[in-house]
C-alpha cells in the first residue's frame, strides 16, 4: 500500500441544537488533536485532515452528509456520533459502506449488545457502567437512604439511564421507595412544577442524568428554592456543567463525567502530556476540557494505536483500510485517562470516575473531590450479555466492587 497524502477523518458532532454544548467542545478538541498529530508528523507519517458534519441537521441530512463524506470526500475513517440516535442510524450504514467508524461519544449500550459489527467500534464506555458507577458511589457514600426521585429528560437517554439505574437499585437495595419519576421534555425551559413536587415529596436522593441547559436550569431553580438542602443529588453528567454553574451548585453533590476523565484526573493531572492538553484546550477555548473533549481524545488515541498496530502487523508498511479495521479488535490505547481495551464485541472498556462537588479557592467553580475510579470490567455486562439481564443477576457482592479513592490535594 502506497502512503496516501493524507488520512481523512469524518466526524459527526452537534454544531447546532441543544447538544452542541457537547458537540462544539468535541469539535474544538478534534481540531486541537489533529494539529498535535500533524505536528508530530501524522499517523504513520501521514497527516490527518478533518471533515465535520452536523448531527443537529436531522437524520436525513446527517445520513446524506455521512454518505457524502464516504462516497465523495472519500474519508478513511469516521467518528460518529454524540447522540445515540445518530449512532443507531449511522452504525449500520457504516457497516454497509465498509467504513471504519468509531462511536466516539454516544452512550446507548444496545448497539453492541444487539448485533455483530466489523466496522464499528466504541472508544469509550457505555450507559451501563456510567450508571453503575453512580449507583455504587451513592450506595457507598450514603447507604441509608429510603426514598429517591428521578428527574430525567424525556428521551431515550433519560429513560434508558433510569431503567438501568433503577433496575440495579431494586436488586441491590429493594427497600428504597421511588417517590417521583419525572420526565420533563427535552429542552424544557422551566422546572418549577417539578421542583414544587419534589419539595412536597421530600426524597432523600434525587437523581438526574440531564445535561446542558436543562441541567443548568434545573440546578439553578432547585438551588434557589432550597431543594439542595433537603436531598442528596446524583448528577452523573454534571461534570460538563460545572464551569458554567459555578456558585449555583453547592458542595456535596455526586457528579460524574461519563467515563474516566477529568481535567483534574487524580492519576494523570501532573502528567506532562495531560497538562499540556488541558492547558492548550483552555487557552484555545477559554474553558477547561469537559468530557466530550476527552472522548474525542480517546477516539484519536484509538485511531493512532490502530494505525500503529496495523503497520506493525504489516511489517512496518503503511496499512490499507481493512488492515486498520483488523487492528481494532483487542486494541489497547490510552486517551487522557487509564488505558482502554476494545473488547471482542467491539465495546471499549473504560473505567469510571465519579465524585462529589467541592468549592476550593483554586477555581471559580466547584471541582470534583472524593473521587472513586471503578474498573470497567467490574461494572459492565460481559460481552454478548444484555445489560438488563446482567443487572438482574447482580447481588449484594456487587456492593463490594472495589474502587480507587482520591482526595483533592492529597
Amino acid at each position: 500500500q502506497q502512503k496516501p497524502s493524507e488520512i481523512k477523518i469524518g466526524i459527526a458532532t452537534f454544531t447546532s441544537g441543544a447538544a452542541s454544548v457537547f458537540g462544539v467542545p468535541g469539535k474544538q478538541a478534534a481540531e486541537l488533536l489533529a494539529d498535535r498529530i500533524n505536528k508530530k508528523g501524522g499517523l504513520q507519517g501521514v497527516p490527518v485532515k478533518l471533515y465535520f458534519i452536523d448531527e443537529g441537521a436531522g437524520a436525513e441530512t446527517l445520513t446524506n452528509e455521512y454518505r457524502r463524506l464516504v462516497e465523495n470526500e472519500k474519508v478513511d475513517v469516521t467518528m460518529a456520533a454524540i447522540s445515540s440516535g445518530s449512532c443507531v442510524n449511522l452504525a449500520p450504514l457504516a457497516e454497509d459502506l465498509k467504513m471504519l467508524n468509531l462511536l466516539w461519544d454516544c452512550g446507548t449500550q444496545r448497539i453492541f449488545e444487539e448485533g455483530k459489527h466489523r466496522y464499528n467500534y466504541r472508544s469509550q464506555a457505555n450507559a451501563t457502567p456510567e450508571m453503575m458507577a453512580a449507583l455504587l458511589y451513592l450506595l457507598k457514600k450514603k447507604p441509608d437512604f429510603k426514598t429517591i426521585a428521578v428527574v430525567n429528560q424525556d428521551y431515550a437517554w433519560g429513560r434508558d439511564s433510569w431503567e438501568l439505574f433503577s433496575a440495579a437499585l431494586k436488586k441491590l437495595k429493594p427497600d428504597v421507595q421511588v417517590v417521583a419519576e419525572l420526565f420533563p421534555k427535552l429542552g424544557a425551559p422551566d422546572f418549577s412544577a417539578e421542583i414544587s413536587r419534589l419539595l412536597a415529596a421530600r426524597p432523600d436522593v434525587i437523581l438526574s442524568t440531564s445535561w446542558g441547559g436543562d441541567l443548568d436550569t434545573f440546578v439553578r431553580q432547585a438551588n434557589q428554592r432550597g431543594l439542595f438542602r433537603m436531598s442528596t443529588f446524583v448528577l452523573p453528567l454534571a461534570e460538563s456543567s460545572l464551569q458554567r454553574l459555578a456558585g449555583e451548585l453547592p458542595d456535596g453533590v455526586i457528579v460524574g463525567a461519563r467515563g474516566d476523565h477529568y481535567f483534574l484526573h487524580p492519576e494523570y493531572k501532573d502528567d506532562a502530556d495531560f497538562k499540556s492538553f488541558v492547558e492548550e484546550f483552555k487557552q484555545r477555548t477559554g474553558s477547561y476540557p469537559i468530557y466530550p473533549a476527552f472522548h474525542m481524545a480517546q477516539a484519536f488515541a484509538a485511531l493512532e494505536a490502530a494505525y500503529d498496530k496495523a503497520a506493525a502487523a504489516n511489517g512496518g508498511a503503511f496499512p490499507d483500510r481493512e488492515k486498520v479495521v483488523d487492528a481494532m479488535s483487542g486494541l489497547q490505547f490510552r486517551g487522557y485517562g487509564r488505558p482502554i481495551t476494545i473488547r471482542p464485541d467491539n465495546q471499549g472498556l473504560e473505567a469510571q470516575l465519579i465524585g462529589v462537588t467541592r468549592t476550593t479557592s483554586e477555581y471559580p467553580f466547584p471541582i470534583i473531590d472524593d473521587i472513586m475510579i471503578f474498573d470497567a470490567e467490574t461494572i459492565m455486562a460481559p460481552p454478548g450479555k444484555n445489560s438488563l439481564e446482567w443487572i438482574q443477576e447482580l447481588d449484594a457482592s456487587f456492593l463490594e466492587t472495589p474502587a480507587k479513592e482520591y482526595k483533592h490535594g492529597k
Partner: protein
Amino acid sequence: MSHIIILAVLDGIAYGSLVFLVAVGLTLVFGVMRILNVAHGSFYALGAYAAASLGLGLTALGLSPWLSYPLFVVAAAAVGVVVGGALERLLLQRIYRHEEALQLLVTFAVFMILDNAQRLIWGVQPYFYSEPLRLLGNVSVAGITYTAYQVVFLPLVAIAVLVALRLFLRHTLAGAVIVAVTEDREAATAIGVDARRVFLITFIIGTTLASLGGALAAPTTSILPGMGADMIVLSFAVAATAGLGQIEGTAVAALAIGLGRSFAVFFAPELEVLMPYLIMVLVLLVRPEGLFGKATARKI
C-alpha cells in the same frame, strides 16, 4: 392533597403568565395582520439574550442589579423595534400583496436565520442571568418555597399587560384603527387609516411582547440557541385555543395550559407534554372557533 392543589395552581399561574406574555404578542400579530409569525419564538429568544447580556453588563460595570428591571423593558423594546421593525419593513411589506402563505414562508426563513444568528453571536453554551430572581427573594406557601419573581412578579406583569392591551384595543383610537385594519385593510385606507403604519406598529408591539416574555424568562431559565422553537408551538396552541386575535381568550388559554401542565406534573407526569394539545383539542371540540371565538360577520 388540597395543599398539593395549591402548589400546582401556583406553578400553573407562574408558567401561564410567561406563556401569556409571549402568546399574546403572537395573537395580536396574527389577529391583526393574519401573519402566523413562525419567527415569534426567535424574538422570545432574542429578548432573553438581550436581557441577559445587559444584565451581565450591569454586573460587570458593578451597577445595581435593580436596574435590570427597567433594562429588561428597554431590551425588549429595542429588540421589537429594531429587529421586528426591520423584519416588517424590509421583508413583510414587500409581500403583503401576495399570498398570505408567503408571509408564513418569510417568517419561517427568518426563524432559521435568527436561530443560527443566536448561535453565532452568543455561542452554544447556555447563558443565564438570575440576579432579578434573587433580588425579589422567596415566599413560602404551604411549607414550600417559591421565588417571588415567579409567583408574584410575573403574574402581575401579565395582568398589567392584559389590562393595558385591553384598554389600548378597546378604548383608544389606535386600538380601534388596528381592529379596523384587521378586518378590511382597503376599507380602512378609504377612511384615512395608514395601514402600513398600523401593520408596522402592530408587528413591533407583537414582537416586543415576545421579547419581553423572553427578557422576563431570562432569570428563570437557561438561555440557549433555539430556545424559541418550543415557545412557538406553544404560542400557536394558545392562540388557537383562545380564538383569533382574542386577548382575554389568550389569557384564559395560557392559564389553562399553565395549570394543565403543572397538574400533569403532580398527578400524571406522562401527560405533561401533551397537555397543551389535549386542552386545545378539548376546547375546539366544544367551541370550534376557540374559547372566545368571535362571531363571524354575515355574508349572505
